[in-house]
């Protein structure tokens, strides 16, 4: 579903990604972790072309992201993405947040889009909040709406960039629960997260990045059993202490 082939990226002189190669198969859940600044966000943003890259290629469902002829908007419309800071549109109601892209991008009618949006809102347990603005919701609620907004586009896969790291601890689980459910339904997911509980529960593979390189790319049990690289071992030790 997502093939990342020898991707390298530079910000000016600074190389953020070095020769990254991996793959997310259909129905697979892959967790990406690594220290701050290791390039996790950059890599995941390359997948839907939010960040350009200079070398290599990424193919999503048969479409090359790096090809200048690719219609990136069209590609993105069926790749869902959830951000660290939710990024709901603050000037719109929750319903409008859920429907705007359905109407403007997929050409659905307003009724159809609202119907779909409200169903998904119900699914994340927030139906009563449809008429509110994002600012009136808690962080956890906003992030659940953001997931519903992405799902409303009927994505073929979902990208998550640290979806719980801006949340107060007591709200993390309500978001993780939605993600777990999604994973169990067979959604293809690439998740940057340090929630190792989530990784243990639903991930098929874990990727560990350091300094722009994919240092470790292993099946979940292998990764948690005994990571090969020393760097990943240290990282795991540190993160599991908490």
């Amino acid at each position, binding site marked *: 579903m997502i093939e990342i082939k020898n991707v390298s990226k530079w910000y000016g002189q600074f190389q953020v990604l070095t020769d990254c190669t991996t793959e997310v198969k259909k129905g697979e859940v892959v967790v990406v972790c690594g220290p701050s600044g290791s390039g996790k966000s950059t890599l995941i943003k390359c997948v839907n072309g939010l960040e350009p890259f200079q070398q290599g290629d990424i193919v999503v469902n048969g479409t090359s992201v790096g090809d200048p002829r690719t219609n990136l908007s069209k590609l993105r419309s069926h*790749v869902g993405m959830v951000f660290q800071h939710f990024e709901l549109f603050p000037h719109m109601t929750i319903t409008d947040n859920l429907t705007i892209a359905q109407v*403007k991008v997929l050409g659905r009618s307003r009724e159809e889009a609202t119907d779909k949006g409200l169903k998904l809102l119900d699914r994340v347990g927030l139906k009563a909040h449809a008429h509110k603005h994002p600012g009136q919701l808690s962080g956890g609620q906003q992030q659940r709406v953001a997931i519903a907004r992405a799902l409303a586009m009927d994505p073929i896969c979902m990208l998550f960039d640290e979806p719980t790291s801006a949340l107060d601890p007591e709200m993390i689980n309500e978001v993780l629960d939605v993600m777990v459910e999604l994973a169990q339904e067979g959604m293809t997911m690439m998740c940057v997260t340090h929630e190792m509980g989530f990784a243990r529960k639903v991930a098929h593979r874990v990727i560990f990045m350091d300094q722009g390189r994919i240092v470790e790319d292993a099946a979940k049990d292998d990764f948690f059993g005994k990571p090969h690289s020393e760097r990943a071992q240290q990282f795991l030790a540190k993160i599991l202490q908490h």
Partner: protein
Amino acid sequence: MYEFDWSSIPGALPLLGKGLLVTLEVTLTAIVVGIGWGTLLAVARLSSNRLLSFLAAGYVNLFRSVPLVMVILWFYLIVPQALKGLFGQDIGDIRLVSALVAFALFEAAYYSEIIRAGIQSVPKGQVAAGLALGLTPGQTMRLVVLPQAFRNMIPLLLTQAIILFQDTSLVYVIGLSDFFGTAYKVGDRDGRLVELLLFAGAAYFVICFTVSRLVKHLQARFIK
């Protein structure tokens, strides 16, 4: 000791009213066209297209570097001559039209700077979220960024409108009878210049002060 005599004002009110309408017409046209054209300039200036960005920056810098009075005079004296040369006939009284054009084009430069700051005040993540949903860059600008930019900018846009409202009095240089020009003419005619100018000043003050109070009120509401 100067003896005030306000008696010529009541009779002049209809005339002054007409002048106020001209002032409002110039102000509103400049606001509407200025914000519309200014938005396009701001978007062009922030675009990744080098040429577009360069042209927009040139336009803005040009208009911001010349006095407004000169722009008004140019559009009154030079542009009509050029048009006359083109069409080979007289085009009648163009004072109002030339003032409208001059103000709209001039104000657009100022509005575009306000709007550019407004666009930049919208977090980058909002653009990423719009694009990630499959909206095109244009749709993201129109549906996601600009509404938030304008909401942030309302106080500044209104403040600029107040300045503009006062600046329209500069049309006296082309003999257009706006509110100020009319007051001046009436005062001159009746030998009561001091009274008429005091009256006009008071009227400007009341209008501008009221609007700026309104802006403060809006600001308080938006920031809460």
